[in-house]
């Protein structure tokens, strides 16, 4: 039995939705402050509170109580059914890793990556880590991909001159290197939009729910991922081009703009993007 008339009920709906929108948008901003845990706290709380409040307004407490009690068990069942297929794939992919098949994929991807990372293509350590992480992602080696990705980030940070951090020229003596470089952005966009050879979690989920063609979505996922990668790469390149136009060419220039000319950082003018650059 609904507790309220339909018009005031609609107002309550609006309030609940507004609450959700606020929670999600505030979460999106909190990510900018690097607080992912906080974001998940807010979203989880918003979902549960919103659902419970609306259930009271709607008079659907009975269904919600049943759902609360049943869903925890359902989650365990789901997890256990997924466990089989995920372990199976993980096992096959480990074989691919051991036999060196991953290296072949990495080698094949190298020409493309040289185009995407023109400034660091001669840095063997950085390019190696980037390539291996993407190859591991491609094969769905979640466990291997994360350490390789963090290694790649460390290498990219080593090459970070601090040119992207605004106000560096004014900071005397020390260089802040807390802003993402173009290479980091490109790497992360590739990392999140990359094609996965066998989307094992989805296949497992579909098989668990009784699909007759659980692998039938593989090609569709490849095509969709390819679109996603293409758009991501284009967006990253365009945005990097736009942001490059706005900032000084190198730290030396930045210092000049701010009225000081002695090069206390010891960087050459050509370090970043010049024809004789070190990269």
């Amino acid at each position, binding site marked *: 039995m609904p507790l309220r008339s339909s018009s005031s009920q609609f107002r309550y709906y609006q309030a*609940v*939705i507004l609450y*959700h929108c606020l929670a999600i948008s505030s979460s999106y901003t909190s*990510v900018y402050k*690097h607080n992912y845990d906080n974001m*998940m706290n807010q979203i*989880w709380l918003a*979902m*549960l509170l919103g*659902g419970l409040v*609306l*259930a009271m307004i709607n008079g*659907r407490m009975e269904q*919600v109580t049943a*759902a*609360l009690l049943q*869903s*925890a068990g359902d*989650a365990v069942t*789901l*997890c256990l059914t997924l466990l089989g297929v995920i*372990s199976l794939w*993980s*096992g*096959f992919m*480990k074989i691919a890793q051991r*036999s060196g098949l991953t290296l072949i994929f990495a080698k094949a991807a190298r020409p493309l990556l040289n185009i995407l990372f023109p400034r660091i293509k001669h840095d063997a350590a950085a390019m190696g880590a980037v390539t291996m992480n993407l190859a591991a992602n491609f094969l769905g080696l979640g*466990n291997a991909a994360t350490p390789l990705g963090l290694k790649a*980030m*460390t290498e*990219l940070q080593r090459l970070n001159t601090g040119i*992207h951090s605004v106000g560096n020229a004014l900071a005397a003596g020390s260089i802040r290197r*807390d*802003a993402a470089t173009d290479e*980091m*952005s490109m790497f*992360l*966009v590739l*990392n*999140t939009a990359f094609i*996965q*050879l*066998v989307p094992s*979690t*989805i*296949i497992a*989920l579909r098989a668990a729910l*009784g*699909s007759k063609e*659980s692998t*039938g979505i593989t090609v*569709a*996922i490849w095509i*969709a991922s390819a*679109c*996603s*990668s293409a758009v*991501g790469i284009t*967006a*990253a390149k365009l945005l990097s081009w736009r942001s490059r136009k706005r900032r000084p060419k190198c730290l030396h220039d930045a210092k000049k703009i701010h009225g000081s000319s002695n090069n206390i950082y010891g960087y050459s003018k050509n370090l970043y993007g010049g024809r004789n650059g070190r990269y």
Partner: protein
Amino acid sequence: MEILKVAQLYAVPAIILIILLYAFFKNTATFDAFLEGAKEGMDVSIGILPPLIGLFTAITVLRASGAMDVIIMLLKPVSTLLGIPPELVPLAVLRPISGSASLAFVSQVMKQYGPDSLIGVTASTMMGSTETIFYTLTVYFGSVGIKKPGYTLVAALFADAAGVIASVFICRFLFS
């Protein structure tokens, strides 16, 4: 079209065959490697259980209370504009934020509509072609002390949106 159908059918067995044949020619201890990998896979699956329980419950409560219907109804203009089925708009919103939440949502959608229905197939494709952007960015940037992600998030969200829209069109094209 026929080629794609054949590819769908052969993709997974062919990949396993290639992996095994290559390992055979390279004299890899296949079963040892398999066992180690399977163990890692098990740890991963068990690791996602706590967040999965929490988020599964939250999403079930949202659905049972009728809040999900209201959200879907309110997002209808957006979904018709982009051509996304309204039932899947919450997935498009949840996916960049939380892998467990979207996994829970996809499983419930597939249970309701059937995994081989157009909605089930589209949900699978969306889930498979997009990533947990916020989590990845936080972990990777956090690991080296980058505090200003610049345009990375925007570019990644563009890629995500492209994946979502592409999934809808490809599934409509392939499966209906």
